[in-house]
């Protein structure tokens, strides 16, 4: 019953035009980035190496598919949560707004399972969006620019990773990025359980992300104690796979924090939805 309901929920997602907005937006954005890098990639990359190039000379193919994929991921990781929340923030509140929640709750399935099926459908949508991001950023970039070593700029300096040592990092990076987006999806589903319209949960989710990101990026000691508990701090941990050596301990920590967020948010959603007085 859970799987059947999940399937139904996914069909509902697919039948809404807004669900394709994310795919369309990603396609346009990534195409624009690839076009810009093709036209002026060398200049853009020189910003990264400028202070080093006074003394050193970088030889080899710096602008390549791996670098473009990395840049795309870094640029879009801020925007993709909006595309996810646009769909998942509507999953419960959309039913309330359309007046179908009463019918949904009267089906021979527990409210907990309804929440689970919505969560699973949202997770599948998020996974598809992540895969689409991966295909566009990695596959298309490689087709246009070819492969090569990856030059990554961290706060500690430059890391140059050899071509043969990159693909698995992207694979694991996408897995962690998916987990981060799933946290956003769960947060918006949770907000959705509290709301009666679609706009509220979407805006609330983005507001939380913006506030937490600002707190995380402020280099002020007063926030240092809360930063490790903000899920936005761990959303960028996919980037850690491109460090050398890889800080696996901090990645595991990020994965645990994200999973705890997901579990807690699902539990809150279940609790709220079970207690919800359905009047619409």
């Amino acid at each position, binding site marked *: 019953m859970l799987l059947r309901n999940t399937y139904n929920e996914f069909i509902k997602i697919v039948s809404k035009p807004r669900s394709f907005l994310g795919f369309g937006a990603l396609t346009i954005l990534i195409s624009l980035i690839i076009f810009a890098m093709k036209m002026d990639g060398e200049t853009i990359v020189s*910003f*990264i190496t*400028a*202070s*080093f*190039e*006074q*003394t*050193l*000379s*970088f*030889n*080899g*193919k*710096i602008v390549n598919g791996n670098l473009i994929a990395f840049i795309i991921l*870094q640029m879009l990781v801020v925007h993709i949560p909006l595309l996810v929340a646009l769909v998942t923030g509507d999953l419960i509140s959309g039913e309330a707004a359309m007046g179908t929640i009463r019918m949904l709750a009267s089906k021979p399935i527990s409210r907990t399972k309804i929440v689970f099926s919505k969560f699973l459908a949202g997770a599948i949508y998020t996974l598809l969006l992540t895969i689409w991001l991966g295909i566009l950023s990695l596959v298309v970039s490689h087709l246009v620019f070819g492969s*090569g*070593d990856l*030059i990554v*700029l*961290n*706060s*500690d*300096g*430059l*890391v*140059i990773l*050899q*071509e043969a040592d990159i693909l698995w990092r992207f694979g694991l990076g996408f897995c962690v990025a998916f987990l981060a987006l799933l946290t956003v999806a769960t947060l918006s589903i949770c907000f959705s359980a509290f709301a009666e319209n679609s706009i509220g949960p979407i805006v609330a989710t983005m507001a939380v992300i913006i506030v937490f*990101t600002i707190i*995380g*990026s402020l*280099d002020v*000691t007063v926030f*240092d104690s809360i*930063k490790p508990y903000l899920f936005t*701090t*761990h959303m*960028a*941990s996919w*980037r*850690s796979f491109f460090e*050398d050596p890889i800080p696996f301990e*901090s990645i595991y920590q990020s994965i645990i924090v994200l999973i705890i967020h997901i579990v807690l948010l699902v539990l809150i959603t279940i609790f709220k939805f079970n207690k919800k007085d359905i009047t619409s």
Partner: protein
Amino acid sequence: MKKLVVQLLIFTSVSVSAQTANAVIDNINSKYNAVKDYTVNANIKADIPMIKILPNNVKIYFKQKDKFKIESKGIVIVPKQGFTELNNFISNKSKYTAVFGEYLTIGNVKTRLINIIPNESSGDIVLAKIWVDMAKMVIMKSQITTVSNGTVNVDYTYGDQVSRGLPSVMKFEIDVKKFKVPKSVAADINKSSASKKKNTKTKGTITISLSGYKINSGLNDKIFTKKN
């Protein structure tokens, strides 16, 4: 009169030593000029603060007078200066004055310092120092100070091509004090300033091991214009 004699003596000694230093440089130049072009396999190992890169194998092409190209499959970092500048500079005697300095033993080799001072102040090179193995007439160590790139120290080790003055290992010492990471590009929000490792090293090294020289094979100029 006494003062005049002393001045004359100083002038004569400087002039003689400059001639001798020039003769040494002539010797080095003649070896260098005999190599019209070469291709060599190189292993580049960089140990530079703020940059992490694995050693890489490349192919280096050189053709007189200053055509130089590195062919590599991956990204490699090499010093911006130090490959051809010194030889080009010392090849034109009218541009500098060479003066002998003190002796220095590098490893087991007794070398003599030659200070090379540009005659014009408009050029990029401010001062060049070379420590020459007087027996084999090869440069064992060089220090070039330029307006654009500061000071670059290079240590040379020679192998089977010592007779041609071509080194088997070149070790560059790089000044990294100017290196800065642009904050806006390094989006690493997870790390606070307290957690960021402070870079205390001010020098880095790039070691280039050269092997399999192919000398005077008549390299085509197109090699130097072709992109990797």
